[in-house]
């Protein structure tokens, strides 16, 4: 009994850890997409952030400076996307593809040139990473049956970015649905001309949304390379940015359902590593590749309206052109 509880707790613990980068990126996508800007560029921003964080932490020995660098790098790419999408009224999908491509190439080239260990950054020592935070009383309460281990194993013992990511969900919901900025952001993604008529600057609002997304993707990138991992590797995001976008879509562009989608994807990921070569009773061995592909298949089915219906923000992807 205690064994299976611990197994379950470790599975949920991994789920939480794996969900964090998806969650941060998906929330970044939330702001951009609800303001009407396609957020296919999450992958590139996260990757650039991961490299900037790892490189800075490797040189300075400080995870916090790494985090700042990650935010700066991600913000720079967000600004490019904003410039192309908002000021230049370019094709947002093309812009995002370009940003992802540049980020993939540039991080690999710079990592190789600066550190010369095959496109990686050096392994970070523990004090240049975000360490685990032991919540108060975790030790003394761990003796309490059921709740004790849950508190000690699952709730306590994560790094600070994990707590930040989960706190950002209610914060985002609050900003989006309870503040003036949130109302305006959502309005500008649905009907920008109405917002413009009210005398509010559409371009400025959209830039704000894209830049908030830039900051959040910086967190996501720093988490990958200086909290979850201990250094940067070429293409270390490996599609997590697209997966985050899928979670946002699966969450129907709302914060709490998006969190649930991120947790589902992370759970599939955590389960997949544990199910390798294990035969399930009644089903037999499930191919790990099927579990791996599950988030993508789910997204396709959802978008096609086979499971529920996802309605994107009305003005998404359309550059705003003021009449006359």
């Amino acid at each position: 009994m205690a064994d299976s509880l611990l197994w379950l707790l470790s599975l949920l613990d991994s789920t939480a850890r794996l969900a964090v980068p998806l969650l941060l990126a998906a929330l970044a996508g939330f702001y951009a997409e609800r303001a009407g800007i396609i957020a296919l560029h999450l992958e590139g921003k996260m990757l650039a952030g991961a490299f900037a964080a790892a490189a800075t932490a490797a040189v300075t020995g400080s995870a916090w400076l790494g985090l700042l660098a990650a935010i700066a790098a991600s913000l720079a790419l967000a600004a490019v996307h904003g410039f192309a999408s908002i000021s230049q009224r370019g094709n947002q999908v093309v812009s995002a593809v370009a940003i992802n491509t540049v980020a993939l190439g540039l991080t690999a080239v710079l990592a190789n040139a600066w550190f010369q260990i095959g496109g990686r950054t050096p392994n970070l020592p523990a004090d240049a990473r975000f360490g685990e935070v032991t919540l108060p009383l975790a030790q003394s309460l761990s003796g309490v049956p059921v709740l004790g281990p849950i508190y000690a194993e699952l709730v306590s013992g994560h790094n600070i970015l994990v707590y930040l990511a989960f706190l950002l969900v209610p914060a985002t919901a609050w900003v989006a649905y309870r503040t003036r900025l949130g109302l305006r952001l959502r309005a500008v993604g649905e009907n920008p001309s109405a917002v413009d008529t009210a005398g509010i600057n559409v371009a400025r609002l959209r830039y704000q949304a894209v830049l908030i997304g830039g900051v959040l993707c910086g967190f996501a990138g720093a988490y990958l390379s200086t909290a979850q991992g201990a250094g940067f590797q070429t293409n270390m995001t490996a599609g997590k940015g697209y997966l985050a976008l899928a979670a946002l879509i699966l969450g129907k562009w709302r914060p709490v359902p998006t969190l649930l989608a991120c947790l589902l994807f992370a759970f599939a990921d955590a389960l997949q590593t544990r199910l390798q070569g294990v035969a399930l009773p009644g089903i037999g061995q499930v191919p790990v590749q099927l579990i791996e592909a599950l988030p993508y298949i789910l997204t396709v089915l959802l978008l096609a309206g086979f499971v529920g219906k996802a309605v994107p923000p009305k003005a998404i992807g359309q550059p705003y052109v003021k009449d006359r």
Partner: protein
Amino acid sequence: MTARGADGRLPWWATAILMPVLNVAVALALSALVILLIGEDPVGALGTMVVGAFGSGTGIGYTLYYATSLIFTGLAVAIAFHGGLFNIGAEGQAYIGGLGVGLACLALGGWPWWLALPVTVLAAMAFGGFWGLVPGWLQAYRGSHVVITTIMFNFIASALMVYLLVNWLIRPGQMSPESREIDPSLFLPKADEMLGALGLEVANSPLNLSFLLALLACVAVWLYVWHTRPGFALRTVGANEDAARYAGIDPKHVIIITMALSGGLAGLLGVNEIQGVQHRLLLNFPAGLGFTGIAVALMGRGHPAGIVPAAILFGALYQGGAELAFEYQTISPELVIVIQGVVILFAGALEHLFRPALLALFARRGKTKPVEA
């Protein structure tokens, strides 16, 4: 009246030649900056790239071999663009198309290559086409956006291929997930063999018959898009879906057919890679060339006559980049990906950046000089 926004005001050569050249110039300038940032000499690096790509028979062979795959994926992205569809799934479609080629080759055993080629081409187009058709159908009838669906299909293709290679196609008694080699009689003739038979001595390289197939595909796409009824329907839907519907064209049909054709073209990459070079099924053989097709299509302005030089340019970047990485320890081949990204940015998303300046330039010229007929 202002010149801004008037699309047809630039002479055709400014749009077709000057703008792509400007885009490449910006991309190269930014890459030079990156090389400076690394602390190497950009001029020397460029020289190494050019010599690596065009300085030897082998170099030219490799350049054209990469260009072959890029023509296929560039055409795939371009034909979808004409229908107003952004196919980001060429990578996955090429992967699945290659699966079709590999399965056909494994089944055909000792057939001569010339007899097998029509079968493998059909298999490539059918498999790749199916991987494009499904997202097309989903957009046409279920309203899901082809951009997201094709991205998802790239990941699904990748998982599917790992599953098939690890569990079913792997050669028994082997660790790495690769199929057995196809029968040597099926190997497509290589350029050095073909030209050697004509008495021309050419260096050994992976360049093979598929290059001619790629040129043939260019002609076919040109005929289809600009000289057939379905091609007209395709361009009409791309220009204005409502107008197309009003003219009696069913956009749903057009979207599905276009995505199937697009996927089929991408699938032909498999003929070059599997039947032409690798001679077995293996993991990740498209190696990003499907994504590079986006840059090729944008730079080639969606026209086969532009796609061929754009594909050769990117083929040269791939080959020259490999040489560069070999020559300079600090420069890695991923520099090509940076250049590719910058080209996509400036030729695609920021295409309006240079246009106002060019328009102003031409407008001023028009005032001082009489307009030539």
